[in-house]
Structures are given as C-alpha cells and as structure tokens.
C-alpha cells in the first residue's frame, strides 16, 4: 500500500469506527451494519498485500473495547473473515457487485455467528433473530459501500496496480 493509499485506508477505517458508535434512534439500532468489518473486507480485497489479518485483529480488539465486549470476541471473528477474503481476494475482485454482496452476506454471517457463540459461552447471548440483521443490511449496502470506497481510494490514494 502506498503512502496515499494508507491515508485513504486509515480515513475510511476511522469513519467506520465512528459510524459503529454514532448514536442511532432506538428502532434503528439493530439494523446498524458492521461498518468496521465492511471497511476491512474492502481493504483486504483491494490491497491484500498490506491489509492483512494482523491489522484485522487489531481492529477487532478495538471493536471489543468500544463495545465493552470480552477482549478477543470481535477480533476472532474479524481475523477469520479477513483470512477468507485474503486468500480469495482474486476471485472476489472479478465478481460482480451482486455476487460480491452475496459472499459478503455469508462472511458477515460467519462473524456474527462467532460473536454469538462467544457471547453464548460467556453467558449473555441475545435471544432475537434481529441479531443477524447487520448481515442483511451490510450485504444490501455493499454495492454502494464498494463504489464509495473505490472513489475515496481513487481520489485520495492511488489504486494499487497488479
């Protein structure tokens, strides 16, 4: 990742963290997409050489701290998701936006399941199907997120070529 691309990545990840904690009205809280995971997926997909699992792990730990969750819960989910994106990034990049969105849905589902599993072990798993809503909203928003992120990357950074 070039210096300018690094700028774009840190900016978007910062904004993703902001969106993750920005206050929403009560009815919308369960629908909030997992912004940080989406941003990490984008960067792991487009510049996998530098956005690796270690960065994902750090972002996951920060997510844990901001959620007041047990340390490592989101980190574990994010590491596994980014690992999959990482080894499959070439296939993902040539897929259409719709196909990507479907894959993203299952990736987000995987992360949510890991989070649910850990909360279950710790003893406070949420008992509602709304828990999986972020996967749906995340997948639905993916085409727009992808396009916006690509524009940000082109404007601020310089698209990686290979």
């Amino acid at each position, binding site marked *: 990742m070039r210096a300018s691309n690094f700028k774009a990545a840190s900016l978007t990840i910062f904004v993703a963290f902001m969106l993750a*904690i920005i206050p929403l009205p009560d009815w919308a809280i369960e629908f*909030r997409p997992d912004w940080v995971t989406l941003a990490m997926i984008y960067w792991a997909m487009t510049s996998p050489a530098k956005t690796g699992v270690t960065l994902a*792990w750090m972002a996951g730990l920060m997510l844990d*701290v901001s*959620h*007041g969750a047990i340390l490592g819960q989101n980190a574990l989910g994010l590491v596994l998701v980014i690992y999959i994106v990482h080894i499959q990034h070439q296939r993902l990049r040539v897929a259409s936006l719709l196909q990507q969105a479907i894959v993203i849905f299952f990736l987000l589902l995987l992360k949510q399941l890991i989070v649910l599993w850990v909360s279950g072990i710790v003893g*406070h798993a949420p008992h509602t199907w709304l828990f999986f809503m972020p996967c749906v909203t995340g997948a639905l928003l993916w085409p727009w997120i992808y396009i916006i992120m690509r524009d940000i990357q082109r404007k601020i950074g310089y698209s990686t070529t290979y």
Partner: protein
Amino acid sequence: MQTLFLRGPAVTLRMIILVILSIILMTADHRWQHLDTVRNTLSYLLYPVEYVVDLPIRLYYWGQENLSAHQTLLQENQHLKDMQLQSRVQLQKLDILEKENERLRQLLSATPKTPEDHLIAEIVAVDVDPYRHFIVLNKGAKYGVYRGQPIIDAHGVMGQIVYVNAMTSTAMLISDVSHAIPVQIDRTGLRSVAFGTGQTDYLDLRHIPHNADIQVGDKLISSGLGERFPRNYPVATITRIDRDTGETFVDVRAEPLAQLDTSREVLLVWTQRHQHSTPEIESVDEEIEQQAVEASTEESVEQAPEEAVDASE
C-alpha cells in the same frame, strides 16, 4: 514490490497464531479479568473516535447554553434559586435527623455511617453494543474511578463501572442481563436481589416467597449487602406482582427509578471502602494510598463475585 500470488502459508500461519491469541485473550479476560492495561492502551486509540462522535452533541448543549436569551437565563436562574432554597430547607431538617441518627447509633454502639464522596460525570453520546446496557462516561482513571464503582442519577441507582479507561469509563446499567443489585423493600425491610432483564423499564425480583409482604408501589432501596452499592439509595418501584400458585416463587417486576435511557449526567459515588483520593496532589503518601485503594478494589472484586456482575445464570 508486489507479486501476483501472496505468500500463502505465512498468512495461514499468522491467522492460526492470531486465532489462538484471541482465544487466550478471551479466556484471560473472562476468567481473571486482568487485562485492564490492554483495554486501557486500546482505549487511547479509540478516544479520538468517541470524541469526534460526541462533539456535535456537546456543541449543541454548549450552543444552547451560550445562545439562549438573557431573559430565559434570568428565569432559569430564578427558578434554580427557588429550588435551591427549598432543598436547603429540606436539608436543614435532614441535617438534624442525621445528627440524631448518629447519636442513636453511638448509643447503640453501632458502626457509624461514613460520608460518601460524589463526582458528576457526563454520559458520552456513543452507542455501545445494542444487546448490552452499557454507557460510556467522560471520567476515567484520571479522576480515581474504580471498577465496581456505583453510579446514580437524581432519581436512583443507575449501575456500576465495569471498565476504567484513562479518559473514559464504561458502566453497566442495572437493567443489563448480567447485572444484579441487592435491594430491600423500604416499607418492610424485606431483602431481595433485583436482576436486570435487558429491558430498561423493568427489573426482575427473584426468590420471593408467596407469603412475603409486598405490594405494587413499594419502593426498593439498595440494601448495601455485597458491599458494592451504598445503602439506602432508591432503586426501583414494584409495578407488577404475579402470584401464580403453581410456581415456587412470586413473579415480581419493578421499574427502575433512575432515568436509564434519558439521563445525561450521572454521579459517581465513592463509598467508605473506597475513599476518594485526588490524584492531582501527587505525594508519596497519596500514591501509597492510591495503591491501597486499588488493592482493596481488586480484593472486593474477587471476594464478592456472586454479588453483581455475572449473575446471569
């Protein structure tokens, strides 16, 4: 230089190491709760994000204060003065009562009630996990906030601190599913434990027998058992009693008195066990005292695990 194919095995190896690390971290955090330093360090990184998110709301309040008309301010000032006068009058009576209480306690040679210390903290306007009832406060370790510290608002007990960061701290509300607070019915003195339900509008009172003397409208106050919450703070009022004779215990619901989802300012309470030592004055004695306070906090967390947090099962 970038190659077409990334070094596969290295990534896999790193992934496996990180997964193992995550599992170790989770176990350590859940079992021993000794990862405060890690949390603290990460919270420094997170602080700018929280600051930026909270900024518009703070600006709004700032604007409201600074741009409001002279007339409104005067009116508000007059109103507050009236209220203060009223409170003063009530306090005078309370003062006498307190003195009398102290005398009576001395006569009974009971342990004297020690005064508590308070500090106002503001709730940072950020959303935390939608399925937990956590709030973020703008006072942290710098002000001597400690883990397990009770927080109250103008109406009653709100919750307790669960994570202390440098600049902020995270508190669990009494309505969280894994929270429980020892309470007592004001009218009869019957002791119970109020469990959080995950809903902000009611708590669950468990293990109350059928013949217990309780009524709808009874006020619940903190009993001080468990030595985490100070005694005699209002907690909730009983709103529903379901006497199903088939069940072993009565199903009792109580509505928290504190405004759990609308309060903006809360009070941090230092109880007698944790005297408030101001870290601003830095002398050796202070530091020793601080360490002693920290040590006793650690102890109380280990000694009273059944009291509050993790009572979900």
